[in-house]
């Protein structure tokens, strides 16, 4: 229970970003143009975009986290291989169980020495630690990799009441919702409890906002860093995943 309290997150107020005046940026553009001119001259044909392969993931894991990292990734790949072809509900169950069993809940403070850090599945598996959004992201990515359409998956910010219906402790939390049908009651994949329950049986959670990777450039884009993607946590983590070899 003590851990749960640490999943709290501070909302970073994202103001409607007006486009910065192009005038102010003109100097920077000229500089960019000069750099581009120079680099295109220097590089000539340009570089071949790295083709992200799932195999690459193992190599990165070994390099970063050693044998435990390799084992974790191997286990994950085995899970994905075993679950392939099963029906969606079974896939959801296995993925949920895999991560809830394997990953130890720790706050970002402890794992990353940062206030709020969205880890990629590889980072989560490599360290075997993560907080609520790391669980949700890892599960989302796994299910998407198993072929479940994005329209059935939602990462959802929820207001979680900790310690039973009468408790006054409220916590910002993130879960993954699985919608068997678009209009159906979602199944909740949570890090707080290991069991998957339909939303109607989770009175402790109140949904605030949900999102998935639909409509985002980054998900399908080549792993060239898009400077604007860094500004959004969600796009940032998708981009880092792409660079690590997860598509």
């Amino acid at each position, binding site marked *: 229970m003590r851990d749960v309290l640490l999943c709290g997150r501070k909302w970073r107020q*994202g103001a409607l970003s007006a486009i910065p005046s192009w005038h102010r940026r003109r100097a920077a553009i000229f500089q960019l143009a000069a750099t581009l001119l120079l680099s295109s001259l220097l590089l000539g044909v340009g570089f071949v975009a790295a083709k992200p392969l799932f195999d690459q993931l193992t190599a990165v894991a070994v390099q970063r986290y050693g044998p435990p990292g390799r084992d974790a990734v191997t286990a994950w790949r085995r899970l994905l291989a075993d679950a392939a072809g099963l029906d969606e509900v079974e896939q959801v169950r296995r993925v949920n169980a895999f991560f809830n069993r394997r990953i130890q809940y720790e706050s970002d403070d402890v794992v990353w020495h940062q206030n709020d850090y969205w880890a990629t599945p590889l980072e989560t598996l490599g360290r075997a630690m993560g907080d609520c959004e790391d669980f949700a992201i890892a599960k989302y990515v796994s299910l998407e990799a198993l072929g479940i359409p994005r*329209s059935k998956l*939602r990462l959802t910010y929820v207001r979680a009441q900790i310690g039973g219906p009468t408790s006054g402790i409220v916590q910002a939390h993130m879960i993954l919702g699985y919608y068997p049908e678009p209009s159906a009651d979602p199944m909740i994949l949570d890090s707080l409890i290991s069991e998957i329950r339909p939303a109607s049986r989770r009175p402790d959670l109140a949904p*605030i906002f949900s999102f998935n990777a639909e409509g985002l450039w980054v998900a399908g884009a080549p792993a060239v860093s898009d400077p604007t993607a860094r500004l959004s946590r969600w796009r940032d983590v998708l981009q880092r995943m792409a660079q690590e070899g997860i598509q």
Partner: protein
Amino acid sequence: MSLIKQLWLAISAVTLLVFGGAFLLTTVAARNYLAEQLYVKNVDNATVLALSMSQMPKDPVTLELQVSAQFDAGHYRSIHLLAPDGSTLLARQDDRTADDVPAWFAALTPLTVKPGVAQVQDGWKQFGRLEVESHTRYALAELWRSTLHLAGWCVAAALLTSLVASLLLRLLLRPLDQVVTQAEAIGARRFITTEEPSTPELRRVVRAMNALSDRVKLLMLEESRRVEELRRKAQADPLTGLAGREAFMSALAARLEPDQTIGAGCIAVLRVTALGELNQRVGRIVADQCLLQLSESLRTLVETRTGAIAGRLNGSDFAILLPGESDDGVVLAALLDAAGDATSTLTPPSSLPIGATHYLPGEAPGHVLARMDSALAASERSGQPEIREAPRRDDFREPTDAEGWRHLLDEALAPGKVLLGHYPVVTPTGAVLHFESPVRLNLGGQWQPASRFVAWAARLGKLQTVDALVLDAAFKRIKATGEPLGINLSLESVRHPEFARMIADRLHADPELAQALWLEVPEHGAYHHLEAFRNFCHALKPTGCRIGLEHAGPGIARIGELHDVGLDYLKIDAAIIRGIDAHPGNQAFLRGLCMVAHAIGLQAIAEGVSTPSEREALPGLGIDGLTGPAIQAG
């Protein structure tokens, strides 16, 4: 293609590449930047709107109001709310395009920005999917405007760069032009020296060429001195350095040729009587001193006159030949002065007999000498200088004074008509180099050669008018026949810059004329007015006409001073040519003279070739062209 053009093209290409590339890249970068920013705005605004919709009631009116509020107050092309099954729940759209952006620009730089997508929740249930697309038209307008700006700047900068580059090129390559000019001059055997340019590579080239020129100049100097020495040996009296009897007689014979341009003149002889007695009385050394002083005075007298010569005919007889001089008073006064100076140291001062006579071209040398001898004999008897007139001609009554001559010449020149003589100058193989065209003037109803009037025309300042008429006639004849013509110009004309300019203008306008024109100036005059002559050459050489010296030979020692003006030929004085076949000393001199001439690219032409044996002997001595009574065309 010239070097400057190639460099300029290269610079232009690089400039175009740099500015064109910068322009394209900047435009593309700006477009990408705008697209990126618009996409971020789409995503953020979609998220915000979806979040607010997730929290609000989902009745149609509230939804509609929320979307409208966002759409109407913001800058959107479209906001769509789609149900999970894909059907449209709500849609707002603005399809206006940017009106101040040309269609081709919009098509060329399409600003395609993906819509921002966010999910709307109704509690745990999916409610819909929100797609927000910002309007790109103001971004496109901004892109268009800045592209125009940028294009303007790039064009201006490229023009400026090109301008600066071409100025710089011209500055850098100016020394190169100089170097090329000098190299060409040296190629044409004009050994000029030029200032060393500041460019190190070119400086080394120029330095080398200057060194070459200097060495040639030095060589010329040495060589011409050697040749001058040969001339002295062949022609001069050993003690005084004046012409010996033989050389003097050759010169007289040359001046008496009927058709030569210097004209009538005077010849005078001064006898140092009783030289033997003088030797005994004052000693040989003092007597020789005396003779040397006399020689020096005579030399100064003839030095600046065309064709003039001073000679020692025998031990005691000193003679001067002054062609073109018609005033006997001048001659006698000069001789008396000379004699007075020479004998002033003797006691008692002895008055020396002087005999003089006028001569006319066409007279036999024997007649002239006889007249001079009779004058000398008379002077010995009378103790006074004696002078004899040339015989009157029956065909032409010469005026006796300046007024008469002025009247006669004005009358002759007024109609603007002159005749030109026509004497071939040929190569040893017989090919015609050009035709000498001495002037004839209609004096009192008869066409008379220059020798008849040239002295008076000079004295009365009419030569420039004569020259102008001669050139007119020559141009006409060249136009009509295409024959190359040799024209004698007087010093008066050479000394007037505007005269040279006038000819140059005429020749620049018609290069064919220039090709056929050979202009010649007396050697004496050229050296006497060296600066004027150099200017004359600089003005006329670029037209392509040829310039030469006539009556050349006596001034050979100074030929080095003219090594860089671009002379084309020397016409060697008849006095040297006469009897060349039988005179080994003169042959050695002439051979040296031809060598020096060839060394600086001059043709050597022999004047006054009067016998077949002379004609046979000359080519072997290095002569390139011959003219005179013994020469016919073909």
